[in-house]
């Protein structure tokens, strides 16, 4: 009993067949979920990366600045627009309360993103596909992305980063052909 000590012999009481059946079913589901995560690394196509480098805000800022210099093709509302080559490194710096550049990507091509913060933690949330990762200062999170659809995507910050948190929005544009750039005003 919940308020009294259990009756003697409680420890030897046989588990009822329905309870036993349920526990076995639940155990199978629990073990399956563990293997599912591992199998998704083998057969699935969406897996967080395990690659992170230590960095500093100074180092990452200078990496980002030279990345922008090499790849800039224009400007959008005061924010540089860059078009890196497929398979290349992309540096994205988050800071209160902006993303360092608008990035133009090609559909079905891989890009190696490096994401870090200049100040506090931020959240890298790409909409409307709803893909979310954390951004830390002092850590360079390396994530390989391959966009599967053309169009305009927004980078929303979804980790509270101070009083202007809700002003922090960036952009990624995915194109198939460079002719499409004009559609976005670039």
């Amino acid at each position, binding site marked *: 009993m919940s308020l009294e000590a*259990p009756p003697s012999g409680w420890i030897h009481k046989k588990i009822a067949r*329905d309870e036993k059946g349920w526990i076995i079913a639940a155990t199978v589901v*629990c073990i399956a979920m563990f293997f599912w995560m591992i199998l998704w*690394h083998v057969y699935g196509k*969406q897996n967080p990366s395990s690659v992170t480098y230590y960095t500093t805000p100074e180092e990452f800022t200078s990496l980002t600045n030279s990345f922008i210099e090499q790849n800039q093709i224009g400007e959008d509302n005061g924010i540089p627009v860059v078009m890196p080559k497929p398979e290349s490194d992309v540096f994205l710096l988050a800071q209160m309360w902006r993303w360092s550049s608008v990035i133009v990507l090609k559909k079905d091509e891989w890009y190696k993103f490096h994401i870090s913060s200049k100040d506090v*933690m931020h*959240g890298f949330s790409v909409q409307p596909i709803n893909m979310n990762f954390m951004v830390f200062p002092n850590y360079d999170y390396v994530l390989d992305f391959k966009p599967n659809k053309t169009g305009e995507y927004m980078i929303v910050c979804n980790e509270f*980063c101070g009083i202007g948190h809700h002003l922090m929005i960036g952009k990624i544009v995915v194109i198939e052909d460079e002719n499409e750039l004009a559609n976005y005003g670039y």
Partner: protein
Amino acid sequence: MSTFRTCDITGFKVDNTTEKLFRLNAVFAVVSLLIAALGAILLVFTRWQDFHVLSSPWYYRIIGLHGVNALVFWIVFFEIAGLYFGSTVVLNSRFCAPKLGWLSFILMATGFILTDVMILSGNADVTMTSYVPLKAHPLYYLGIILFAVGALIGVGLFFGNAALAKKEGKVGKTLPLFTYALMAAAIIAVLTLLSGALVYVPTFLWSLGLVESIDPAWYRLVWWGFGHSAQQINVCAMVGIWYLSVRLVLGGSSINEKVSRVAFLFYILFISIASAHHLLVDPAVSSTWKVWNTSYAMYLAVLASMIHAFAVPSSMEAAQRRLGHNKGLFDWLIKLPWGNPAFSSITLAIIGFGFIGGITGVIYGMEQTNIIVHNTLAIVGHFKGTVVIGTTLTFMGITYYLVPLMFRRKIVAFKLAKIQPWMFFFGIALLAIGMIALGMFGIPRRHYDIAFTGGPFTYDFNLASGFVWVLFGLGGILSFLSMLIWILIIVVSVFFGPRVNGPQDMQLAIAAPLGEETTPHKRKYEAPGTLVLTIIFLVTFLVFYFLNWKWLAAIWEIQ
């Protein structure tokens, strides 16, 4: 020398110190809950941007206020009261060190006031998680530390009380299941509060300028050792109350106590580091680390909850069948005392905890599916299911018993009390499901303006979200009203309610224990109705499981 009274309703001896400290902690719990609820309604009407009542600085401030009062102060004050109750009254024993009990309370009360004052004065706009390098005023961290130290002393007193009861021969070899559950909660509380000290003490020193910097990845790792484990204390206490209420209302118990007790052991052994599921999309930790530490190969903490998911309803079913409600699969379910507000609260809490909180929690806590929900409103919807419908509704429900037993007052407006749990359940369910749907659209949590007015770009979230915001708002209003009703009923009862002078004044039944079954039943299954219910649960889980993986598979490729 401790003095006590013998309860004329339950026959338990109630130590005077326990009674006083219980009452004080419970009152502070309700005050914290009121602050949390007032914050909540402001947040609902701010996020629902047709109203947008708060300014942005106040929105972020109230986010912190609501979080820390709802998730820390309300729950821990209540749990300390519960730990004292479970380690003295239930064991017919005395309070081991009254002076330390007072010290614990004074520290907790000071910490509570200091923290809330720092938040409201704008000195701690860091939200509840206070991720470094966001920095608050040192007194904010000090407030949390004082509260945690007080709580740690309270947990220590629980162990002291239990040891004293054992020494004085008040308990035999085995603790009652309710106290056993509290013991599990207390053990997890020690681990939790030590993690809290490990993260808040250096952060406090850093805010004073005595420590140069705090590593953000380290902070998140250790903070969640505190933040998540804290919720596991709630789960143990809550499930303990579920078993307690089956005993109080029906006289029944777990159909196999060994199974229930092993499940609590799993919580202790496997939850602390499983807080890794908060770091699934973080840099600095690898996939191997994430997959292993969220699951230990077989999700044993989840399994523990699955075991209780059968054990608690089957204890109701077995008791009901012995009481004569033996027709078909669900006669026992229909004939449950749904008009008893404590019982309805607890049963609704079980449903909400499982179907809303549990299903989403397990799916969102897997490494890859976390990508499509992390830091969206879906996460908040998940823990509205676990902490608000699960823990808070359970605690609110059992209070309907504790007011007459420990405050010796009748419940006023009893008819209103009967409908209050249903209002709260439907309100929070609507709010939580609304949040989960909004999170599916990608709408972030803790965000003042999802139209990004004043930002370099604007964005319109899925147009269907407009309709969901209305559901969210209605859920918020309904649950806020029922919360106010509960607080009013409890406060008026405690201070002005008619006195309870004996069993004739009890509005809620206390059943005699059913004891061992002498003549074995002839059913093939112990609890066939429960088995059907749990299968429905499992099927619902699997449907949402595969839907989420399907949604994940539609996004960009990531490696």
